[in-house]
C-alpha cells in the first residue's frame, strides 16, 4: 500500500486529519500538566497562543467524535431502538451543557 494512500480520497484525508488532531491536543495537555507541576498560577502568552491554535483542532476532534457516537452507542427504549440521530443530538447537547457549566464555574473562580 503506497504511503500516499490517504490522499486518494477525501474521506481518507478527513480520517487522517481527525486522527492527527489528537497530536496538538496531547501536546497542549502535556504543557498544561507541566505548568501545573511548576505550580504556575498564571499561564504565559505562549501557552495562550498555543491554546488558541489548538482550539480548532479540539473542536474538529470533538465534532467528529460526537458525530460517530450514533454508530457506536446502541440503546433501546421501551423495546425500540433509539435512532442514531437522537443519540448524536444528545451527545452534542451534553457537550454544550458541560461546556456552559465549566465556563460558568471558571468565570466565577476567576472573579
Amino acid at each position, binding site marked *: *500500500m503506497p504511503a500516499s*494512500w*490517504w490522499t*486518494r*480520497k477525501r*474521506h*481518507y484525508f478527513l*480520517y487522517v486529519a481527525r*486522527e492527527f488532531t489528537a497530536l496538538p491536543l496531547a501536546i497542549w495537555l502535556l504543557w498544561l500538566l507541566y505548568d501545573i507541576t511548576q505550580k504556575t498560577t498564571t499561564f504565559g502568552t505562549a501557552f495562550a497562543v498555543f491554546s488558541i491554535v489548538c482550539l480548532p483542532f479540539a473542536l474538529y476532534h470533538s465534532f467528529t467524535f460526537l458525530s*460517530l457516537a450514533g*454508530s*457506536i*452507542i*446502541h440503546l433501546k427504549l421501551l*423495546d*425500540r*431502538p433509539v435512532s442514531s440521530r437522537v443519540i448524536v443530538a444528545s451527545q452534542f447537547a451534553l457537550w454544550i451543557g458541560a461546556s456552559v457549566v465549566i465556563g460558568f464555574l471558571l468565570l466565577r473562580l476567576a472573579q
Partner: protein
Amino acid sequence: MPDKRITIRATRYDPDRDEKPRLQSYDIPFYDESMVVLDALNYIKSDIDGSLSYRWSCRMGICGSCGMMVNGTPKLTCNAFLRDYWPGAITVQPLNNFPLIRDLVIDMDDFMHKLKSIKPWIIRKQELPLGAGEHHQTNEQIDDFRQFSECINCMLCYAACPVYGLNNEFLGPAAIALARRYNLDSRDQGLKQRLPVIGDAEAIWECSFVGECSVVCPKGVDPAKAIQQTKLDTTMRFVLPYGNRD
C-alpha cells in the same frame, strides 16, 4: 445512438509473462443506457479479447463475485453503470489489498479463512431434534441483526479499508459484521466461541474507524458500526458485574 462509444482501461496481468500488472485500453460500443461495467467486460471478452480474466456470476448484485476497483473505488461491476462515467474513460482494476492472480482476478483465500474463523453459522449448545419445532423469533429480534445479514461477501469493504491494506492480519470489516450478525441472533449461543477471535488485538481493536467500509458496501451493511458496537459490548462484558455470564 449507434455511434456512442466508451473507453475501458482494464488491468492485464499474466504471471507467466508479465513482471507487473499493466493497463490495456479497449474502445467499445455503448449501445444501451442500462449497460454496466460488467457488460463492458463481457463485450471485451466475447468480441475483442477472449483472454481477459475476471470473476462474475449473477449479474444482479447478489453473488458478490464481480467486485473490482472502478475508477479507484471498490464497486460491484454489475451495479456500476457506464452512463455514470461516460464520456470519460473507465479504469477497471482488481480489488485493492488482495494478491493478484491474473488480470482482474484476486486471491480471496485470506478472506475465506477469516470468514470461517468467526463461525458464521448458528451455534447451539445442544441441538434440539427436528421434531421439537422451529426456533421462533419476533420481528424485533430479527431487526437486531437484519442489516448485518445482508452481507454478500463481496470484499469491497476489505478493498476500501486502509487498516486491512496496511496490516493483512486484521480480521476485517465483513468478517466482524457477520460475527455480530450471529452474536445478535436470538437463536445463537456461540458468542463465547467467537469472542477469542473477534476480541483479538488484530480484530475489533485494530479498527480505527475509518468508516469507508460502510460507504462502499453495496448492500447497505454498516460494518464500521458492527465493529464499534462490538468494541463497546466486549468492554461492557469485561467491566460490568456478571458481564461474562453466558
